[in-house]
């Protein structure tokens, strides 16, 4: 191919590409594009209307000449801020305009704006411009741009499409003619996305964790969820509660994406109701409009119509939901376990009791009854009056765990505990069933090889400071091979020293500072959990090694010197000066 022929081919190819591009950009019969819009000084728009508040002044060129378009807020004669919704209409609000709802909104051509779009628009304005302008040119412009595209009237009579039409919920806000630089477009898209998803009216739901009457001593939780008209969960919505009846009413909360829960606790027998209320954007906003406003039915926007203005305010709507239930007497739950499974005769037996769901204010004396001895493991009907081996009682005022007083089982055989909690005006009586295996203890004669372990204990120090920690080292010798024996420890005190000494004190009425237990499985030294000392005085440890099938119980006495600690406050380094007398040199 010669160079001249080569050049001709290149020129022809260039012409084809150029023609194709021109057809694509300016296709015959399509909507006529205008030149790119640019952001003009606000003064350019203010020359046309002095009532601008915040927004952006756009300048564009159409076939019929240069145009300016304001997207943003304006101020009415009465001071209220609004957004124009009729493109090319006179932007002033007529003095005789009244406030109406946006229900059934149509654009200037008479085309109906969808209810969902109106609701989304109200969400955007209620959220961002609840009290007039957003205070930002870009945010007000973003809302103005959304309005233009929702109203779908941004086409001039010469066919120039200044603002794309047909923005629907979930759709994407597009740029005005020729594009738009800066953050306005991104802001508008974000606002519309949220408005579409969280448009009102909202619904609030309350779902109880359990149906039926609510027993005293328990709580009932409710899951509360707020959902938009788009069926989307709304996070961050403020839900308030009002209640009737003897319950603790939940405090207001902010919803989360996962939903939120609240709890009610009954205080007395009766009935209650709980009502949740949420306030969110309404389905409609508010407009300024004169009574003579009419659609014109044309294909393009017209100049000099009478403007309608969407008032920049929050237009809210509230939703409520209620739940009711009765409150009945409480049914305490009692979990019990015998202190030891197998012992030798003469061993004190105790029951470990854990009570829950006890109504507040309960103050009764509970009873633990030991039945036995039985030849075989007792069953549900074994607990008859003629088999009572002992009965102990203990005060019960709150939920928690406790150990009953002891009953000594002297005869070999099986023994079983039952617990009885009396009822009161708020509480049903409870009696634990007979024959539970965890409540059963086998007392069998000590084998000839039964041993008496030796226990030697020593506290972590004989002196400690307030705020310090103490613990006890328990040295166990003579434990049968394979034994696994619980050791219960108690820290008693503080009590006052006598003549400066903790020796020889009477510990029988000393308060308990802390208690705990550990299990020893072989000879050696075992350490108790540490306890922080809060008060000065004398404290002492006492330990009790429980009996097993191969060893007898062993206890240590409180007040043994190696087990006793004097707790004092830290001493000051020097004797402080006490300047409690005034001084005068006589000059005053």
């Amino acid at each position, binding site marked *: 191919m010669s160079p001249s022929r080569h050049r001709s081919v290149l020129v022809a190819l260039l012409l084809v590409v150029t023609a194709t591009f021109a057809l694509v950009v300016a296709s015959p019969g399509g909507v006529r594009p205008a030149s790119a819009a640019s952001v003009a000084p606000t003064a350019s728009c203010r020359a046309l209307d002095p009532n601008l508040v915040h927004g952006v002044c756009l300048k564009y060129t159409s076939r019929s000449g240069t145009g300016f378009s304001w997207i943003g807020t304006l101020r009415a004669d009465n001071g209220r801020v609004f957004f124009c919704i009729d493109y090319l209409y006179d932007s002033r609000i007529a003095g005789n305009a009244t406030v109406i709802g946006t229900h059934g909104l149509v654009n200037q051509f008479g085309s109906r704006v969808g209810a969902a779009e109106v609701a989304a628009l109200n969400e955007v304005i209620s959220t961002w411009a609840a009290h007039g302008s957003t205070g930002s040119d870009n945010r007000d412009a973003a809302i103005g741009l959304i309005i233009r595209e929702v109203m779908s009237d941004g086409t001039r009579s010469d066919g120039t499409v200044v603002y794309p039409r047909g923005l629907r919920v979930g759709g994407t806000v597009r740029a005005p003619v020729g594009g738009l630089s800066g953050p306005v477009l991104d802001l508008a898209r974000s606002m519309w996305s949220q408005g579409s998803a969280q448009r009102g009216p909202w619904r609030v739901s309350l779902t109880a964790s359990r149906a039926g009457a609510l027993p005293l001593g328990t709580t009932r939780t409710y899951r509360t969820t707020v959902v938009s008209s788009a069926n989307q969960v709304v996070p961050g919505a403020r839900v308030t509660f009002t209640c009737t009846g003897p319950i603790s009413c939940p405090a207001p909360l902010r919803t989360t994406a996962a939903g939120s829960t609240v709890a009610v606790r009954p205080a007395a027998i009766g009935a209650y109701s709980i009502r949740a209320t949420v306030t969110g954007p309404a389905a409609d906003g508010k407009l300024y409009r004169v009574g003579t406003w009419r659609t014109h039915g044309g294909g393009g926007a017209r100049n000099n119509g009478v403007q309608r203005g969407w008032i920049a305010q929050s237009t809210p709507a509230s939703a409520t939901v209620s739940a009711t239930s009765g409150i009945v007497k409480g049914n305490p739950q009692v979990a019990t376990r015998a202190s030891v499974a197998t012992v030798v005769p003469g061993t004190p037996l105790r029951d470990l009791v854990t009570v829950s769901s006890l109504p507040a204010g309960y103050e009764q004396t509970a009873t633990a009854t030991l039945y036995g001895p039985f030849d075989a493991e007792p069953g549900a009907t074994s607990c008859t009056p003629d088999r009572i081996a002992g009965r102990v009682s203990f005060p019960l005022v709150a939920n928690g765990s406790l150990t009953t007083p002891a009953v000594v089982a002297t005869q070999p055989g099986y023994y079983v505990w039952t617990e009885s909690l009396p009822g009161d005006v708020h509480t049903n009586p409870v009696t634990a069933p007979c024959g539970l295996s965890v409540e059963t203890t086998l007392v069998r004669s000590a084998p000839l090889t039964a041993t008496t372990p030796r226990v030697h204990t020593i506290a972590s120090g004989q002196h400690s400071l307030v705020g310090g920690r103490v613990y006890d080292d328990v040295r166990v010798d003579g434990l049968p091979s394979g034994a696994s024996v619980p050791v219960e420890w108690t820290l008693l005190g503080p009590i006052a020293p006598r003549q400066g000494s903790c020796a020889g004190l009477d510990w029988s009425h000393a308060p308990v500072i802390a208690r705990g237990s550990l299990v020893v499985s072989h000879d050696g030294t075992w350490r108790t959990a540490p306890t922080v000392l809060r008060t000065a005085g004398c404290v002492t440890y006492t330990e009790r090694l429980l009996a097993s099938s191969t060893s007898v119980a062993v206890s240590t006495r409180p007040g043994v010197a190696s087990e006793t600690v004097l707790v004092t*406050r830290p001493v000051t380094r020097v004797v402080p*000066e006490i300047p409690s007398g*005034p001084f005068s040199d006589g000059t005053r």
Partner: protein
Amino acid sequence: MIRMLTLAAGLLAAVVLVVILRPGTGAVVGPGALLVSARPAARVADRDQFRPAANVRPRYLHSNYRAPSRLVVPGAGGTLRIPSLGVAAPVDVVGLDGTTMAIPNNPHRVGWLKTTATSGDLVGASVLSGHVSDERDVPGTLARLGGLRRGAAIVWVAHGIERRFVVTAIARYPRSQGVPASVFRTDGAHVLNLVTCADRVTTPGGGFHYRSNLVVTARARPHSLRR
């Protein structure tokens, strides 16, 4: 000359021995401090861990002390009553101002030093103090403390607990030497040491100051805790 020096040294040694071996007289100022060092070393070692090791050089013998407000929590220590004197004063919680006990500036209030035993403690000494008078020498709440007698009652109510004490000793100590370390002991039965100033001295120019600390020691009555 040598004989005279030997005689003088002998006299000095005799005086020291007399002073050291003098029978104890309880709360006595001056030589009483030496008696402590004459006690068996083992006992001193045991007691030392519960008493301050040394006295400080006083800073406010010839100037007024003003407690910074950050060291005084008004009213947090409850109230103190001395029925026989008709005294009832609010108790502020005070701290140490360096090596000085912060005293409430208002002479009608009493300060409890928070490093000492609380009203409910079973062990150690609680130290409370108040000004004997103000800068114009108008008497304060504790101005008549010197008139208290052994056996008198003192009642300290703090945090809803009423603690009763019985006065067992009243003593004066030169402020130039400070109070004995035992006033701040942290062991032994719980006592209350109520301190103010005494022994007013008037200067020729019309000035005045107090040269002694008056310490009233009261032992906590058994089972005196009342809520």
